[in-house]
């Protein structure tokens, strides 16, 4: 009964989204304000029905309703409650329902928090979001209905053991919040193109939404990387896998968009380019979904893929992106601006930032699609791996870092290198000192790569600090945008530091240890105390105990496990990790060797690996500060009071 209600509710949500997509939009052309006023209540209603539908699916999982096909294939009665809930998005159908629910949530948020936006604009934005929802809800109902029934099963086939993890319980919702969040910037862009007018106000409305979506995406990507680090069991944190790339591309373009919105807002320039980036960020999010869901590329992360569904998404892609690009080719020529700027100016800096980020995104796209391209051209299937990506991305990252340092300090319109040198010499010296001193303190050996990595990281961080200091304001009076830029830049510097140091100074050894034998790595003594059998709620495990000491002082006791999940009989390596700000100690169980209780162990010393994710958290915080800058609220208040005044006038007139 409950699943049927969920499906019914989904169908109603589809009907509402069709109306939301058509009626207010029609109203904006006819100037009919009651049609336009339909947008807001429709957005609320759409959310209510989607929330109910999603709730029904969660209910089916929690109550082990194995007469629902999707529940029977992805859950099991022995699964802990948390994973029963996260199993809702553990495979295709539920992921899509979550997508749809999140889309309706963003639509709701726009309807609630955009009171300062003129009715025509808001109606168009909500209509565009409604039309996107039509596509997704149709996709759900036609090809991937999560509520399909089958004869009652005795028990479910269980969630993929890889996904039975807290990190993965929250990673997909975060990532989807980011992906789908770019639909708001997209809707703003399309709404502006429909109207044919793109003013500075448009950029101001789109900025906080873009920032928030970007925050979710940043955190989502970091969570995914963190999850891969401890759960896949071999201590890597980025693999240039198609699915990872699918999330990186919208992130890169989204970052470019955040920056180009600044120019459009402050200087009224690059309007067409900004609109194109807004379309691009969401298009790449959709493309990511296509790549993950259609099975055109093989990936370690493809937990659910189906070529037949691919065709639907492709047609959807064609409509969503194709129509917006046609609109772009018609409207963009009008967006030209006659503002000018000199070669050395903040405009140039931001333009360079945009170009580098977009080139990066294109390089990732090319690398990801390369096997497909060579296959379609019938020259065989050639994959490009990490060597290609590192070869392209590292130099581009270095150039980006250099530009980032100058960019913040540059003046609008016209600046000069002689003035800039007068400022940057100080951060440059600090950066040089940091890059030379730091490795001497903790690193076992000198490395050119780490020198360069630390130099660019500290260059980014110190120039950002310099920029804030030069504003000569107390930290409490600094604007949200300034905090955002500061934390964003420093966050990236922290991530770059982590990436550099863990790549250069990572130590990894595979050793054979009998009980009570020990091995030294990175100054730590790893003593293997043996392996015992242990029982989990839905798995059995070998549980090793490793005592770690340093200079005879106890550091940590780690318990890496090798689990076999009962239903899917899949062996899983659960690494034992002692996390620290400056280093992680990582132990994974290999195979039993011989009869005396000896095991092979993979022992790793990973300096600064946490910094990779710590930086992402800082960037996320920066994005939040920027999104909640007071001036957006102040503006909306001002708009409200003016609209009140006008309505008062109407009353008295």
């Amino acid at each position: 009964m409950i699943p049927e209600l969920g499906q019914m509710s989904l169908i109603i949500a589809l009907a509402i989204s069709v109306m939301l997509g058509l009626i207010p939009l029609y109203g904006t052309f006819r100037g009919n304000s009651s049609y336009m006023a339909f947008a807001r209540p429709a957005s609320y209603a759409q959310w209510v029905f989607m929330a109910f539908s999603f709730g029904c699916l969660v209910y089916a999982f929690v109550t082990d309703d194995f007469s629902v096909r999707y529940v029977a294939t992805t859950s099991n009665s022995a699964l802990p409650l948390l994973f029963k809930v996260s199993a809702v998005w553990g495979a295709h159908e539920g992921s899509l329902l979550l997508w749809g629910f999140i889309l309706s949530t963003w639509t709701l948020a726009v309807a609630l928090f955009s009171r300062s936006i003129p009715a025509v604009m808001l109606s168009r934005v909500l209509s565009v979001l409604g039309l996107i929802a039509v596509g997704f809800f149709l996709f759900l109902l036609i090809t991937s209905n999560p509520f399909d029934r089958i004869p009652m099963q005795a028990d479910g086939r269980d969630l993929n053991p890889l996904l039975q993890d807290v990190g993965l319980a929250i990673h997909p919702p975060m990532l989807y919040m980011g992906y789908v969040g770019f639909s708001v910037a997209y809707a703003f862009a399309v709404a502006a193109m429909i109207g044919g007018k793109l003013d500075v106000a448009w950029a101001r409305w789109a900025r906080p939404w873009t920032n928030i979506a970007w925050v979710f995406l940043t955190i989502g990507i970091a969570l995914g990387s963190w999850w891969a680090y401890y759960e896949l069991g071999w201590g890597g944190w980025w693999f240039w896998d198609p699915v990872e790339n699918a999330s990186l591309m919208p992130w890169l373009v989204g970052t470019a968009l955040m920056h180009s919105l600044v120019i459009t807002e402050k200087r009224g320039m690059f309007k067409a380019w900004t609109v194109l980036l807004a379309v691009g960020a969401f298009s790449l999010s959709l493309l990511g979904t296509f790549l993950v869901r259609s099975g055109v590329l093989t990936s370690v992360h493809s937990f659910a893929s189906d070529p037949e569904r691919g065709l639907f998404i492709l047609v959807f892609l064609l409509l969503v992106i194709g129509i917006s690009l046609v609109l772009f080719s018609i409207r963009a020529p009008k967006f030209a601006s006659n503002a000018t700027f000199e070669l050395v100016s903040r405009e140039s800096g931001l333009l360079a930032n945009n170009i580098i980020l977009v080139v990066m995104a294109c390089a990732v796209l090319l690398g990801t699609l390369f096997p497909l391209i060579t296959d379609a051209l019938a020259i065989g299937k050639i994959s490009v791996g990490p060597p290609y990506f590192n070869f392209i991305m590292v130099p581009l990252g270095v150039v980006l870092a250099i530009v980032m340092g100058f960019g913040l300090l540059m003046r609008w319109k016209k600046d000069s290198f002689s003035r800039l040198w007068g400022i940057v010499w100080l951060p440059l010296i600090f950066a040089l000192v940091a890059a030379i001193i730091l490795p001497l303190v903790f690193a076992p050996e000198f490395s050119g790569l780490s020198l360069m990595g630390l130099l660019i990281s500290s260059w980014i961080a110190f120039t950002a600090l310099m920029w804030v200091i030069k504003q000569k304001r107390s930290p409490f009076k600094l604007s949200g945008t300034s905090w955002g830029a500061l934390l964003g830049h420093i966050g990236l510097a922290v991530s770059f530091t982590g990436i550099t140091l863990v790549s250069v100074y990572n130590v990894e050894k595979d050793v054979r240890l009998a009980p009570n034998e020990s091995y030294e790595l990175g100054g730590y003594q790893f003593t293997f105390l043996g392996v015992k059998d242990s029982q989990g709620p839905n798995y059995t495990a070998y549980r090793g105990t490793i005592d770690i000491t340093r200079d005879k002082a106890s550091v940590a006791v780690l318990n890496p496990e090798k689990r076999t999940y009962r239903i899917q009989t899949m062996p899983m390596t659960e690494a034992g990790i002692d996390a620290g700000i400056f280093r992680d100690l990582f132990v994974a169980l290999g195979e039993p060797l011989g009869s005396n209780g000896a095991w092979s162990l993979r022992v790793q010393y990973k300096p600064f690996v946490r910094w990779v994710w710590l930086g992402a958290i800082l960037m996320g915080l920066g994005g939040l500060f920027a999104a909640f800058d007071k001036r957006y609220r102040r503006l909306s208040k001002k708009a409200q009071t003016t609209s009140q005044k006008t309505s008062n006038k109407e009353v008295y007139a």
Partner: protein
Amino acid sequence: MSRYLIPLVVFLALVVLLWKGLSLNPREIPSPLVGKPAPAFSLPQLYKEDEKISPEDMKGKVWVLNVWASWCVSCRAEHKVVTNFVKKDGVDVLGLNYKDYGTEEYGDAAKRWLVQFGNPYSKIAVDADGRTGINWGVYGVPESFVVDKKGIIRYKFTGPLNQKNIDEKLVPLITQLRAEEG
């Protein structure tokens, strides 16, 4: 207006590519070698470097050549499936360790990889420079070939083997080949 059409044109080209991609199966590549004798090689073994191994040694048996490398991420995913396949269906799977030059000490990475993930292979041939891979027409790693009793390649699979493919294709094929005369 023309330059504003560029994004649309690029996007349409991408759609054509993706549409073609849908009709292609990323895991199946017809090989001109299917139906031909398995290309000969004589390669050192991973754990016994002075002993050579060649397809000749496998005559009279139905066997599978599984191309893998320690640097290949999808091999990790495939490995569990291959291990199961060897255990359950008792098939002789020969590993071809392909271009495994990840560490200075050659072969080290491959051995460590097997220690971590287990070794289902009956023997492992080491193809350090990738010449044998070229002769066998290896596009990417992992790949698997089914060779019959007469030493003729009967089937080739590109990409990580999955359980569905093993159950539906490999097992029936191997059962049929085993029934054939050697």
